[in-house]
């Protein structure tokens, strides 16, 4: 009887584990890793992103834009910024879900590095993921291009982050947080009328993305003579009651919030409003999720622009909608990140052969005269984008839609 129970128990545990594994496999949608070397017939790239987890809505948007780009590229359709004369090398994607988790990103980096076929990587999405997984890709000689990592220090070799990533490997097609802090603070002081001597509460979520951003914004606000109440609350602690009461009691004219969990922004602002807060709210791109953050009147700054408003993109956006449903625009820069890599591989393959280091070198030669973002794109030596867009400010309308109030 005891043996029967033990066997039954083991069977249940194995059953649950098998079911879990099958669900996990289906959700991550990762493609099997091949052992073949690099090829100019069909070049392989890694496409990473948080396809599950708290930032999944942003990650899935990125994945869809990367997928759409690859389908356009492989089928020879016109792509903004890609010259007709360029001989396109067809692409194959290896997708990997990083869950916005540095540990998972590091594991993914090991897998991509070990796969000899992979020539470059789209990603990582989060700054903290780049710090964890980037050095592993670098040791494998892989260039990687992020469509959303904005932490300023990633491209500054004088900082620990920049030191581990080293110039020439990490690239991004989005502006960095220094630009964001400046845009947000200028918007608060010039457009929303926050004056010297008035109080602004700044809140980070005690993680690598939001702390430096809010620190810089706090400094800029203080420089403008604004009184700042600097706060920090981990993303997993979702009780904002006392903070909301404090903001109301101290008469804060605005709250600036940086984090990567949009539903935390929703809760915090709802609690503020319930407590009688009638000041302004501005939060950063981590809260850019129209399915989770819907409080009318709130402002959000994002490195992306609203692709719906770029006339030249109309046909591509319509095609995107047909295939995947509407886009939150967050993923649009990932199209451009994939395009930069695809272009570099095509240049590197001019002699019929390709290596990771050639792709890396050619990445710096790519200069797009225009792009899906409506601007020319190239990389600086540091890996930062040259040209491209600045931060766009959106306001949530009464219908929950994100409306552009200050284009980037």
């Amino acid at each position, binding site marked *: 009887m005891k043996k029967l129970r033990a066997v039954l128990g083991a069977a249940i545990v194995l059953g649950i584990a098998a079911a879990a594994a099958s669900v996990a496999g289906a*959700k991550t949608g990762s493609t099997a890793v091949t052992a073949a070397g690099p090829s100019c017939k069909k070049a392989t790239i890694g496409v990473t992103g948080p396809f599950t987890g708290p930032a999944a809505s942003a990650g899935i948007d990125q994945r869809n834009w990367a997928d759409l780009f690859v389908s356009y590229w492989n089928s020879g359709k016109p792509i903004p910024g890609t010259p007709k004369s360029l001989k396109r090398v067809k692409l194959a994607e290896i997708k990997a879900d990083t869950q916005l988790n540095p540990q998972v990103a590091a594991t993914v980096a090991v897998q991509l590095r070990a796969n000899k076929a992979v020539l470059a990587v789209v990603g990582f999405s989060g700054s903290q993921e780049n710090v964890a997984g980037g050095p592993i890709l670098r040791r494998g000689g892989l260039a990687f291009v992020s469509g959303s990592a904005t932490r300023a220090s990633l491209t500054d070799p004088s900082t620990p982050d920049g030191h581990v990533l080293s110039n020439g490997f990490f690239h991004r097609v989005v502006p960095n947080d220094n630009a964001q802090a400046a845009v947000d603070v200028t918007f608060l002081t010039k457009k929303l009328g926050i004056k010297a001597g008035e109080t602004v509460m700044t809140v980070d979520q005690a993680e690598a993305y939001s702390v430096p951003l809010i620190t810089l914004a706090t400094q800029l606000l203080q420089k403008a003579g604004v009184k700042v109440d600097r706060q920090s609350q981990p993303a*997993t*602690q979702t009780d904002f009651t006392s903070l909301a*009461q404090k903001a109301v*009691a101290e008469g804060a004219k605005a709250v600036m919030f940086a984090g990567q969990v949009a539903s935390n922004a929703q809760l915090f602002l709802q609690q503020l409003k*319930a407590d009688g807060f009638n000041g302004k709210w501005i939060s950063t791109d981590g809260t850019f999720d129209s399915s989770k953050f819907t409080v009318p009147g709130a402002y959000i700054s994002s490195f992306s622009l609203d692709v719906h408003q770029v006339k030249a993109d109309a046909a591509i956006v319509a095609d995107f909608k047909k295939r995947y449903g509407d886009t939150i625009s967050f993923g649009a820069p990932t199209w451009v990140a994939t395009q930069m890599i695809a272009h570099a591989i095509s240049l590197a393959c001019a002699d019929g052969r390709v290596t990771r280091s050639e792709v890396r070198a050619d990445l710096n030669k790519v200069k797009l005269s225009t792009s899906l973002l409506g601007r020319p794109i190239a990389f600086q030596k540091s890996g930062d984008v040259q040209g491209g867009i600045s931060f766009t400010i959106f306001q949530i309308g009464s219908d929950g839609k994100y409306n552009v109030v200050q284009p980037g």
Partner: protein
Amino acid sequence: MHALHLVGYFEPFQLTWRYLFAQLVAGLTLGSLYALMALGYSMVYGILKLLNFAHGEVFMIGSYIGYFVLTALGGSANPSVPVALLLVLMFGAAMIGSGVLGVVVERFAYRPLRRAHAPRIAPLISALGVSFCLQQLASIFFTTQYKQYDPFGLSGGTLTTPFSIGAFQISWMQLIVILTAAFLMVVLTQLVTRTQIGRAMRATSYDLEAAAMMGIDVDRVVVFTFFVGSALAGAGGVMNGLYLSNTFPLVGFNVGLIAFTAAVVGGIGSIPGAMLGGLAIGLAKAFAIGYWSSAYQDVIVFCILIVFLLIRPSGIFGVPAPEKV
């Protein structure tokens, strides 16, 4: 002189009764959640001397059950049943679901070790294993995306809008959380002190082997304890969702850690101690944020814990274990 210096440190708004009461209410609400959770830790420890680290995940599952009931009944903005009935159904389902889960965990992860007279470290590791398993399974099946109860949509937002009684400001939602927790704690106290199973629980907690020799069905008592403790955690999970909106696979881990601290501060094994410990930590967190900075809330809470345990290692109501020779 020192008092005057302290007054100068605070902003004028922080020295008003209204603000003080607001922090008090916020602390009591949060403390009520911790207290409900701490009770589960304390009850199980009292009887089995086991730190049930999976308790936080039982709380998390309760929170998800409440969320699924809420969603199945139309969501908070448009529920298909009256709000009172909706709340009863959410609490009922979460308490039963979590209670059953607690019993299953005890049956498969702890009882075999108890029967095998495994060393005390074994069930502790087993508890950690169950905790991580449940967390991962929740991540896989429910995804790690935060699920929103959206309490601000319930009854058109009337439940979350504070109302004033003199200098006091409180919302119906805070009242619901505090009163439900108080009601459940009173019921638990009556259950433990006035019923036969309660007497059996106390006897078992005093000496498990002697209780068995006296004819008490110890397994039944343990199962009952796990069911009640887990049901309270399930209720706490729903309250957490109703008050703090979000639920996610790690929600129980964070709350559980603080509730465990509360149980230790109160004197682990003591029911009134768990309640008091939970409330004390809730208040400490609220006042830390309200009067100092949110960045230091956990530093303050855990410094209090360390200092308190240095002074009174057995907690507020804990009794030092007698040295047996």
